[in-house]
């Protein structure tokens, strides 16, 4: 019997199985994860709320003591604060600061932490010793005095108060990379022993390629968790920084600052509209970033074949 020619549909059916890189695969899985979508929706809403919202507000962020401490009304949807300013408008303006800080500080934190962590974990030897000892010193360093000194230096250098917030993000990153670095290092220490790393050795890959292509995806889950937690803590620590004159310059608000304004029993009981909105805003952002983080981690896990 002569050989029948393979039918056309055969080729069509198998095309889809073409090779897809980890990133494309991850993206496809990421989009399909319903938590990721929820996270993205909330985050985009918060970003729009913060950056576009103020243009729609009828009010100006101007103190007017006659309208102080009014509960939510249809004129002021979230009521007014002790200087008579519209809480909703301030919440939006505050979003701009808090979101930028939260995300920027965390990126810096991760960048430094992961690079140093993987270098010291991978190379070991004297390099590891130096990096880890520096980490010890920074970790033991009391945060508060450093920030006070930073405040002093910045005012001596005549840095305009409004720009300080960006320097602050950098400082936040510099101070808090130690935790991530140690976590990444300890993971790399055990990963280094695994067979697939011996394989990369055999292939003669450059060290940087080994770290980025092979080790990094395995460390990604921890890094993502540290990232999501980093955003939350940066947003909150920004409020303590404002106290030290490093954070937000009044009258521009930030979520942390609005929350700290409600630090007495009476505001708790009598004026919940002062502290509930910023609290909810921070929580929504943090939860959204966490869902995205979770989804990212699952998406990048090749074993997850679904």
């Amino acid at each position, binding site marked *: 019997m002569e050989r029948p020619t393979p039918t056309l549909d055969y080729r069509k059916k198998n095309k889809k199985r073409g090779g897809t890189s980890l990133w494309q695969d991850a993206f496809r899985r990421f989009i399909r994860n319903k938590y990721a979508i929820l996270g993205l929706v909330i985050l985009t809403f918060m970003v729009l709320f913060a950056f576009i919202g103020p243009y729609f507000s009828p009010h100006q962020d101007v103190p007017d003591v006659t309208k102080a401490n009014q509960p939510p009304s249809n004129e002021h949807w979230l009521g007014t604060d002790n200087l008579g300013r519209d809480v909703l408008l301030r919440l939006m303006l505050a979003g701009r600061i808090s979101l930028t800080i939260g995300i920027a500080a965390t990126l810096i934190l991760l960048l430094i932490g992961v690079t140093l962590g993987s270098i010291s974990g991978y190379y070991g030897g004297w390099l590891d010793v130096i990096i880890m000892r520096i980490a010890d010193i920074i970790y033991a360093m009391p945060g508060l005095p450093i920030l*006070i000194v930073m405040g002093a230096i910045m005012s001596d250098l005549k840095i305009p108060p409004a720009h300080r917030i960006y320097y602050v993000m950098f400082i936040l990153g510099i101070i808090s990379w130690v935790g991530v670095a140690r976590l990444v290092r300890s993971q790399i220490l055990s990963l280094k022993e695994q067979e697939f790393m011996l394989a990369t050795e055999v292939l003669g890959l450059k060290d940087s390629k080994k770290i980025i292509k092979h080790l990094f995806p395995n460390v990604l889950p921890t890094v993502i968790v540290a990232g999501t937690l980093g955003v939350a803590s940066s947003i*909150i620590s920004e409020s303590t920084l404002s106290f030290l004159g490093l954070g937000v310059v009044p009258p521009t608000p930030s979520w942390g600052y609005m929350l700290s304004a*409600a630090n007495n029993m009476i505001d708790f009981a009598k004026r919940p509209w002062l502290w509930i909105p910023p*609290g909810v805003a921070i929580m929504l952002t943090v939860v959204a970033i966490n869902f995205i983080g979770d989804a990212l981690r699952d998406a990048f896990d090749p074993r997850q074949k679904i």
Partner: protein
Amino acid sequence: MAQFIVRRLLQSIPTLIGASIIIFLIFALAPGDYVTRQFENPKMTPERMEQLRALYGLDKPLPERYVSWAGNMLRGEMGDSLMFKKPVISVINDFIWNSFLLGVAIMFFEWLIASIIGIYSAIRQYSVFDAIATLIIFMLYSLPSFFLGLLLLKIFAVDLRWFPVGGMITTGSNYTGWAHIMDVAKHMVLPVATLTLISVGGLSRYFRTNMLEVIKQDYIRTARAKGLKERTVIFKHALRNALLPLITLFTLEIPSLFAGAMITERIYNWPGIGKVVLQAIYVRDYPLFLGYTMLITVLTILANILADVLYGIADPRVRLK
């Protein structure tokens, strides 16, 4: 192993010196000193201030002050606190154990609850429990400690009167033995609850991620193929591996046991070292602050050595070079 520890201890000496120099410099650079705090006292004339600065030795050049301070430190002599007018060591001793007590309780509950939530939400990934737990955790995680502290205080101490408003012992009481412990425990409930709720979130996320990683491994399938109970598979085989990276986190927390939670101690009036050091920073009480920070630095270095040693023991693959 011993050789490794000794080498690490030797390595920590330059770290200690480096840290002491940096800390001394930073705090000396901070504007103002103990005397400028008297700014508001109308009787304080500039000549008087200069006199006081000389008395406290604040007028000597920085290097000289550092050398005399470091010299004393080596002899274990931390000098007198300017604020309390008594030896730094006795000031620290008065307060640090209260912070330690709080720290131990917090750490105990934090790790207990975080592990349970973390593991359970890993096993039931994307289940209803996992979603609710995530939501609650991040609700708590996004609240600053002073905020949650005041909230709990209002509900449980003022409205329901289940727990005292603040302090460590009932005023005027001189209980001893068991009654004293019960009294202190009753006062600890709210501060511990505040800090545990805040910190449990982060830790449980790490537990969950590590567990998710480990559950997918082949040796878990082998364990199940051996016919072991699910509990054994999870808590013996999976947890042991998931705990490895957390050792680092655990040892990082040890120094904070002594550091004291400045804000929470202030709200609950807990006589911990945190509140005192916060005041020392503002008042620029150099001896007290420097003494305390060096103590924490030493603890951190020891904790880090412990971390690497523990890691070597727990993970046989990591050879202690």
